[in-house]
């Protein structure tokens, strides 16, 4: 019969027997435990690796530990070693796993054609080529050599906004490329 934790378990592991024979007659503790309970482990223990990271939300810069199992992020929590945060995270930092694993994350390129009413799909490399074409064209079309007789060598036809969520290395390449391109309306959250 299906008494106990499964057919394979023996009569001796029937909790009632354990109640009668053990130190837990009221069936509150050891007698009541299931095999599953005995096998519980924290997933931080079973992770394949832990990456030391930093919270992506605000500038406090709290330390995060990112636990990975089977190439999936299984837990993100505060890094107790961090002298900034001492292992603590606010609700946003605590929601970081939910952020990176959110089902709403965009994982494919979406394209909206001029006058379009819906998104279309686009291969990543096609999109890259198309963007490169458009940059080159916009730059050519709006190139400005002089302004009021003063040399400016630039384009005011290309602008960009954003950077505060990005890495220093990324901002460095962004500014470097745009500057070489002659695009100057490069802005980010520091302005707002």
């Amino acid at each position, binding site marked *: 019969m299906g008494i106990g934790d499964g057919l394979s378990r023996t009569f001796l592991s029937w909790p009632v027997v354990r109640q009668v024979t053990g130190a*837990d007659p009221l069936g509150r503790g050891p007698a*009541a435990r299931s095999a*599953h309970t005995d096998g519980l482990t*924290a997933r931080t223990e079973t992770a394949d690796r832990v990456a030391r990271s930093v919270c992506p939300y605000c500038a406090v810069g709290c330390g995060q530990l990112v636990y990975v199992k089977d190439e999936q992020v299984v837990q993100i*929590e505060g890094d107790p070693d961090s002298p900034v945060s001492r292992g603590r995270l606010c609700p946003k*930092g*605590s929601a970081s796993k939910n952020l990176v694993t959110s089902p709403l994350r965009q994982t494919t390129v979406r394209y909206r054609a001029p006058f379009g009413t819906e998104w279309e799909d686009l291969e990543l490399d096609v999109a890259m080529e198309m963007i490169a074409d458009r940059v080159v064209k916009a730059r050519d079309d709006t190139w400005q050599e002089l302004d009021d007789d003063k040399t400016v060598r630039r384009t005011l036809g290309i602008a960009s906004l954003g950077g505060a969520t990005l890495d220093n290395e990324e901002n460095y390449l962004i500014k470097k490329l745009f500057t070489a391109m002659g695009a100057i309306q490069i802005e980010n959250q520091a302005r707002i």
Partner: protein
Amino acid sequence: MAGKHSLFGPVDPAADAGYGEDHPPRMGFFTDTSICIGCKACEVACKEWNDVPATHFDMLGSSYDNSLSLNANQWRHVAFIEQAKPLGEQESGLRRQAVDLGMPGMAPPDGASAAHAGQDDDAGRPDFRWLMSSDVCKHCTHAACLDVCPTGSLFRTEFGTVVVQDDICNGCGYCVPACPYGVIERRKGPEGAKNVGIAQKCTLCYDRLGAGSTPACAQACPTQSIQFGDVDELRERADARLAQLHEAGTTDARLYGHDPEDGVGGAGAFFLLLDEPEVYGLPPDPVVTTKDLPHMFNRAGVAALTLLAGAALSFLGRRR
């Protein structure tokens, strides 16, 4: 081992449940609400760790509390109480106020005076405070939920905490009305979520404790309003903190649930509050229902005998 305090009174719950004397120390929480900033990190961290579903997407209009209560999908709940109340003043026992006390919009000060904003030089500081407090399962020394559970799903761990075994619970729901704090609840949904139909509540992160880690909520708490540790030591810390606050003039600070002599034999998760418990949605003098169980069974036994006797008498009577 079952003993004279197995149903009521101070006891080491893990030992009483049969873990022997060399079980690890009892672990629990001291939540010092006087330093809670109401950030809800505890709510989020708990949900992330325990994969508790999000179900509630309506604004409640009750200050910043949109999580409603402790329930199957909310194992930590941060209460927000806005009070027009003179600071540092002593509270009387029973407040002479209406049910909806402290709610936004209650008792607006005289429109014209605007005195509570501290406009008039002699009006002093704003007589207003915003209390925040993160509530959780109390991991009672005498846990009604555990006592009444007919399947042994709820059990006492070696750390003295009270945990549901999801693989055992049959959803009888008995633990729900048994809890004197209204903590545990059967998960109703959402569809597709795990453990629907099963009683759910804080496990005090039993899996993490086993791994030597701090519970997710306490680990996250930015201000250490939630302090995790050995209950005996936390009780000392709480006493010290209370003394410190009283000395500093915060006379309305009081401990809640720390007393091993109280109705649940002391809570494994206890609190420092700045007002009466019921202001925070906590019962002022909770008692584990099974304290009265022997008496109840007694009465039921007499009743059963009465029934038996009644039946016998009915048949013993004159045959008609």
